[in-house]
């Protein structure tokens, strides 16, 4: 929400803190300031600063307005706010609008009066009003609409004005009839249902209550007489309708967060005062005020030592009281010095203050959370019991990583499954996965393509995760292996078989149930998936978590890897037996340097050596890859030529 620094200043005689300082105070005592924009005047100097403040739901009862935000300045600094009550304007015309409320639980207060705006009518709002609204990013519409908006951003009470001559018969706040239509101010037509609240006249809906006005009784340049409305509506009903039709507005936002019914009279008084100042000939009718149930004032009674206890800081009752009194909370103390007891009377607008914990927060944030000094909870005599699921899963992870398997965590939302989400992010993410195997299969596939790059003969991975069936959620383990380097008589499944045997051996003492791992069926795609639930159920929870022997976590910084394809090249060099592999490699490296290709060699390894007739052959595998582009064969051929050249200079033979 945009808040103007100049506007805030109008609530105080004293100079309020400068924008930067104010932002800091708000951040540590009230709410976040998400941005600040300086507004330049005609002379190029800074005329105003607008702060974008983030008001969360609790403070939204009283802080979605300049007055609310100004009150925070007063709470924090102790500066006194001006008395800004608008004078009451007496009725000089007799007419009063007829109005009927169908549901007093929904329409909690309804104030209206006629205003004859007279002949002296400016075509645009006065400069000060224009400056204020434009600073916070509001468009100027017409003086009457601008006044309504101003009152809302000033004190937080949404206002509405009808063209009185366009209203046929009497007003009624009622549920819409199924199929009733309304054309909104922006031209959109809504077809309403019997769950939506409207303000209607004898001909039909004029306003979608609390959210958006309709075109039929819209104020125009020729409007002579208006009905000013200041009302209060039940939050969740406004919210349901505004959400359903996507017609959230600054007005519905305030009703949805709930504001006090008491504010309506202030809204009416302020709006009328402004109308009179802009339209000097305006004549006002009597105020019709339908107020079914005036709210009871909230009273919180408690032992105030609770404040100190919960905050964990030393703060005197006197200091707490001062903070609360700045908030216009009436503190009456009935207990004794040794056994204090407080009765707090809460201002109507502070709908966020209901229980004593709310008071702890008010004192805490204004006093300053920087006073809190950390302490640790008391040591326990006995270490807590191990959580069987956690213990088992972590132990499996230890065993499998020791077996050379790496852990992956894949996506839960996938293309197919048994449990479907209502509004999927994408068509291929509409379901919660019903197994781990599908994800694991494509994960194996993708990683197999990078086996050379990773320097792996086999891709070995596992995942432990939740899967979702029609009526159950299970924790599964999937292990996947893909032997990339072909070996006669050796299959990917053999890698998994070994892992399962180890799991069974290492874990058998922890369970009463046997064969959970060793009897699991390995699928032909080199994946096994096991439901861990029986293992968890039969787990003997006597284990100390320290047995898990967590290794220190990696402190490595992530290095970006190339997303372009790589090229593999092998080279075998025949050299006299006395020559070491390192010497051969440094000659190869020289060649790579000659080709200015240092940055392109991602990995190399000596993968084969053999001796023959007093000579030795060293075979190296090199992986070339660029961070910026796809390497071409001819580029790598160029590098190989330079390498061959260097090797030949040494008098060695490239095989």
């Amino acid at each position: 929400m945009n808040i103007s620094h100049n506007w805030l200043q109008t609530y105080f005689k004293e100079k309020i803190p400068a924008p930067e300082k104010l932002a800091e105070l708000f951040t540590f005592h009230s709410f976040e300031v998400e941005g600040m924009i300086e507004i330049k005047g005609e002379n190029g100097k800074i005329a105003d600063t607008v702060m974008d403040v983030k008001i969360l739901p609790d403070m939204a009862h009283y802080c979605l307005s300049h007055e609310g935000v100004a009150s925070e300045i007063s709470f924090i600094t102790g500066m006194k706010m001006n008395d800004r009550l608008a004078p009451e304007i007496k009725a000089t015309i007799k007419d009063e609008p007829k109005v009927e409320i169908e549901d007093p639980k929904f329409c909690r207060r309804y104030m209206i009066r006629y205003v004859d705006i007279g002949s002296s009518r400016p075509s645009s709002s006065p400069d000060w009003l224009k400056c204020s609204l434009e600073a916070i990013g509001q468009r100027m519409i017409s003086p009457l609409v601008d006044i309504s908006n101003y009152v809302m951003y000033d004190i937080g009470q949404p206002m509405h004005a009808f063209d009185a001559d366009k209203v046929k018969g009497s007003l009624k706040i009622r549920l819409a009839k199924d199929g009733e239509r309304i054309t909104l101010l922006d031209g959109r037509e809504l077809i309403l249902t019997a769950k939506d609240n409207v303000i209607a006249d004898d001909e039909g809906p004029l306003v979608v209550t609390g959210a958006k006005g309709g075109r039929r009784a819209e104020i125009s340049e020729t409007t002579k007489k208006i009905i000013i409305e200041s009302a209060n509506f039940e939050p969740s009903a406004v919210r349901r309708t505004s959400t359903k039709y996507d017609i959230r507005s600054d007005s519905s936002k305030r009703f949805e967060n709930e504001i006090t019914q008491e504010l309506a009279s202030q809204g009416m008084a302020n709006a009328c005062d402004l109308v009179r100042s802009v339209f000097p000939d305006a004549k006002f009718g009597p105020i019709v005020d339908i107020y079914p149930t005036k709210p009871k004032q909230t009273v919180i009674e408690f032992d105030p030592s609770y404040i100190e206890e919960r905050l964990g800081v030393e703060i005197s009752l006197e200091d707490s009281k001062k903070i609360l009194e700045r908030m216009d909370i009436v503190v009456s103390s009935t207990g004794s010095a040794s056994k204090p007891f407080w009765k707090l009377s809460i201002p109507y607008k502070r709908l966020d203050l209901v229980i004593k914990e709310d008071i702890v927060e008010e004192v805490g944030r204004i006093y300053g959370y920087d006073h809190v000094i950390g302490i640790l909870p008391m040591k326990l005599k006995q270490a807590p019991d191990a959580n069987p699921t956690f213990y088992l899963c972590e132990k499996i992870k230890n065993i499998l990583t020791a077996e050379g398997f790496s852990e992956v965590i894949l996506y839960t939302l996938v293309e197919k499954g048994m449990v479907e989400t209502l509004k999927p992010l994408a068509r291929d993410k509409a379901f919660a996965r019903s197994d781990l195997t599908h994800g694991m299969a494509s994960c194996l596939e993708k990683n197999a393509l990078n086996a050379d790059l990773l320097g792996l003969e086999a891709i070995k991975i596992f995942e432990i995760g939740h899967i979702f069936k029609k009526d159950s959620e299970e924790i599964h383990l999937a292990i996947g292996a893909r032997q990339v380097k072909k070996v006669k008589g050796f299959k990917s499944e053999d890698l998994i078989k070994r892992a399962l045997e180890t799991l069974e051996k290492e874990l058998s003492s922890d369970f009463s149930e046997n064969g959970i791992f060793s009897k699991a069926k390995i699928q032909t795609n080199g994946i096994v998936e096991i439901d861990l639930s029986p293992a968890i159920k039969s787990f003997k929870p006597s284990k100390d978590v320290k047995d898990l022997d967590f290794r220190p976590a990696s402190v490595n910084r992530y290095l970006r890897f190339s997303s372009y394809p790589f090229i593999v090249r092998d080279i075998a060099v025949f050299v006299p037996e006395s020559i070491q592999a390192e010497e051969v490699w440094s000659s190869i490296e020289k060649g790579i340097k000659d080709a200015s290709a240092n940055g392109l060699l991602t990995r190399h390894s000596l993968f084969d050596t053999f001796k023959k007739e007093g000579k030795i052959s060293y075979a190296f595998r090199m992986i070339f890859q660029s961070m910026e582009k796809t390497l071409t064969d001819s580029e790598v051929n160029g590098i190989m030529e330079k390498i061959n050249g260097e090797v030949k200079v040494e008098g060695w033979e490239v095989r």
Partner: protein
Amino acid sequence: MNPIKSAVTGNEIKAGHLHPITQTIREIYSALYELGFEVALGPELEYEYYNFDALNIPKDHPARDMQDTFWVKGMSASDRGPQGQELGRRLLTTQTSAGQVRYMETHSTPLRTVVIGKVFRNEATDATHEAQFYQVEPLYVDKKVSLAHLKGVLEHLFKKLFGDKAEIRFRPSFFPFTEPSVEVDVKWQKPGESEPRWLEVVGAGLVHPSVLKAGGIDPDLWQGLAFAFGLDRIVMLKHGIDDIRLLYGGDLRFIHQF
């Protein structure tokens, strides 16, 4: 255990890599275990009751807007909880806080637990947002719990995670399930940066009495503290990872770096 030999070369096989999320969970777990916190794991498919109602987030309340939820199609909405309460519709859990009341229902006071789990938000994904991520949520219920305890536990944890120089500060905030609520900043000097910076990483507070009541705990006798943070962000900060999607891509070029 015998070292494993490669079927091809006969060389010893190198150990595999644990996912950096697991590694960080273990660090957090170890730090909190020292203070007597045991792990609690909740379901990922949750009831509306535990995810919202029990956490003092009424229906049609603006606080429900604070998270975009994945609701699940056509699952029975007639299930009831241990106190006979309606459990409502099913959803992919949006917050580990959902595990709080579940834990209170099944354990007796005092409580020290840390809920760890995958959570889901219906948000467009990019380098810093994922529809799935991990949360960690310690909960401590005892007699006379205060914000000073909250700060103490946070300091202990974040000094273990970010080193002894890490500092903690509170700013006012709002969560329906805590009162008072605070936003927690951690001061940390990233490797390669010359100055430490304040990072907003944790939401915290004292457990709201309504939540204790929902868990069958008398708030006049017991109080609690709770905080929650996104694990992915911590992992990303610690390792300098610039794209959250790397965590769930299953790419060994990434995982083998840790």
